[in-house]
């Protein structure tokens, strides 16, 4: 073997090994994140974390009960807005629309998807906070719901389109109207993908902080109804992490663990649902 070939083979082995190192580094970040969260936050997860309200500034103890409930309300509002628009809009794109309208709607959805979440926050502020002159759960829900729309829309459309033509034609040949076909045949056939899409959209907005900063804003207490500002888990993590109190840092870690745990579980469940599906495209 010539020295030149020996060198080339050495370079080949070395560079390929380096790519393995890159992959290892990238994947290990996930485990580092989880590790740190468990290490720093694990011990702070207790009953009071889930049930107590935040204590006055400087005092130790207290929990994030209001933030947890707040996040739940925000996500409920977001889902009520984002899922129907995404789902029904996708049905229109997949089943009824012509190519021109479809192009415009898809383009708008992709555009919306790429908008930085802080800008969505500005938009929600001008639409829902400014006119009513106060922050509210509704405004936060609106911002998050808006972010759910593109993900739900595009994924649902993809899965609806993937339903085999043969299925549609079978239903139509039996005399079913278009709408009946959609409801009884097409949507059930695509349900796994649609469910996955909704779950992934949900998980995505569950962790969003920026759009809430000037819509739901924050609250040290309970937030009754939908018209008041409310605490939320992500915003609490942010507020506590940048504050100078040790006890707050501890709680921020715990909240981070809870939030990430929730998001990862939803992601894994969503992918598992999809993986067991037959003949549905990858999300």
């Amino acid at each position, binding site marked *: 073997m010539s020295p030149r070939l020996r060198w080339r083979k050495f370079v080949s082995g070395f560079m390929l090994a380096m790519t393995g190192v890159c992959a290892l580094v990238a994947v290990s970040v996930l485990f580092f994140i989880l590790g740190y969260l468990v290490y720093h936050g694990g011990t702070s997860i207790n009953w009071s974390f889930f049930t107590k309200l935040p204590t006055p500034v400087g005092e130790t103890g207290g929990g994030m009960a209001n933030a947890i409930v707040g996040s739940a309300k925000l996500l409920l509002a977001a889902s009520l807005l984002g899922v129907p628009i995404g789902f029904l809009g996708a049905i229109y794109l997949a089943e009824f629309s012509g190519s021109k309208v479809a192009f415009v709607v898809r383009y708008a959805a992709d555009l919306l998807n790429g908008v930085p979440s802080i800008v969505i926050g*500005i938009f929600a502020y001008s639409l829902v906070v400014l006119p009513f002159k106060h922050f509210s759960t509704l405004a936060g829900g609106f911002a998050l719901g808006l972010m759910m729309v593109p993900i739900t829309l595009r994924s649902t459309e993809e899965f609806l389109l993937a339903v085999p033509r043969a299925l549609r034609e079978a239903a139509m040949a039996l005399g079913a109207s278009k709408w009946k076909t959609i409801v009884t045949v097409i949507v059930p056939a695509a349900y796994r993908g649609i469910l996955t899409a909704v779950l992934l959209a949900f998980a995505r907005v569950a962790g969003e902080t920026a759009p809430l900063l000037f819509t739901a804003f924050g609250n040290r207490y309970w937030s009754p109804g939908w018209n008041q500002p409310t605490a939320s888990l992500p915003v609490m993590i942010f507020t506590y992490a940048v504050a100078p109190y040790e006890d707050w840092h501890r709680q921020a870690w715990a909240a981070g663990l809870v939030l990430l745990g929730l998001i990862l579980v939803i992601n894994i469940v969503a992918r598992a649902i999809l993986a067991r599906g037959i003949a549905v495209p990858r999300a």
Partner: protein
Amino acid sequence: MAATTSVPSASPISGSRSFVRRLREGDEVARLITFLFAVSVVLVTLLLIFALWQGSALARHKFGLQFFFTRVWDPIAEQFGALPFIYGTLMTATVSLVIAVPLGIGAAIFLAELASARLSDALEFFIDLLAAVPSVIYGLLGVFIVVPLMRDYVQPGLKATLGFLPLFSGPAYGVGFLTAGIVLAIMVIPYIISVSREVLMSVPRDQREAALGLGSTRWESTWKVVVPFARTGIMGSIFLALARALGETMAVTMVIGNTPTISASLFSPGYTIAAVIANEFTEATGDLYLQALVELGLVLFLLTFLLNGLARLLIVITSQRGSGTAHA
């Protein structure tokens, strides 16, 4: 109803069945309702653009194009210039790409060319989970893990070895452009990896085999043939990552220092567009202040809009080339 194999069309179905019958069977209603929902997406997007435009009107008229070149950000004197934030946004994005691109492409090469199908899918699964980690969690780790690491080890180390460069000069507190860039890099790597992996896997087998058949080593066939073949798509993934990096708010604001400074040093604290909006929006007194922030939001929107559009174009071009419908 057109009970044929044609693609569903938007034009009213003429002939076969009467309008009333269609109505009774709910199709027209269904069509109308779903149409309204679909079109609401378009409307809301237009409304968003309008809100940004209108909401920044005062600032736009007052400052005009000078907004982009003014360094001063002084709410009290009502002087608002975007330059420090544009600088900070671009600086942190650049640092993040410098770190994330080689790492990401390297990992993508491993997943696409070297790993077995099972290993590749398993690792991709973890990478996708990484992409799902919210910004504030990265910020949390940034504040408590990365910043001390930078302050106590990395920055002093860099100063000692490369301190003669303006990049690594000046006081080092742990926060700053470099730290924000590193955290951003970790956040955008999954996007580079997943897209690049997919485009690499779509390169036709016989390209690689042709290179091997000429006596290339495995690395040579990958680096000199497969990667160049996929270069457009890989560029697309980089633009996608860049768009993400530009819009990142929480993680950045927690580790950048939040000071509107323009400095050549990576150790200097700084500010980005997204971070200043996040921090000052609710504190903004007076319409001009608020509208200047909205104008910053408009700038950010336009930047990410352009980048995302470019990215998608590049990715589409690559997939066309792979199937042989376009020329190199």
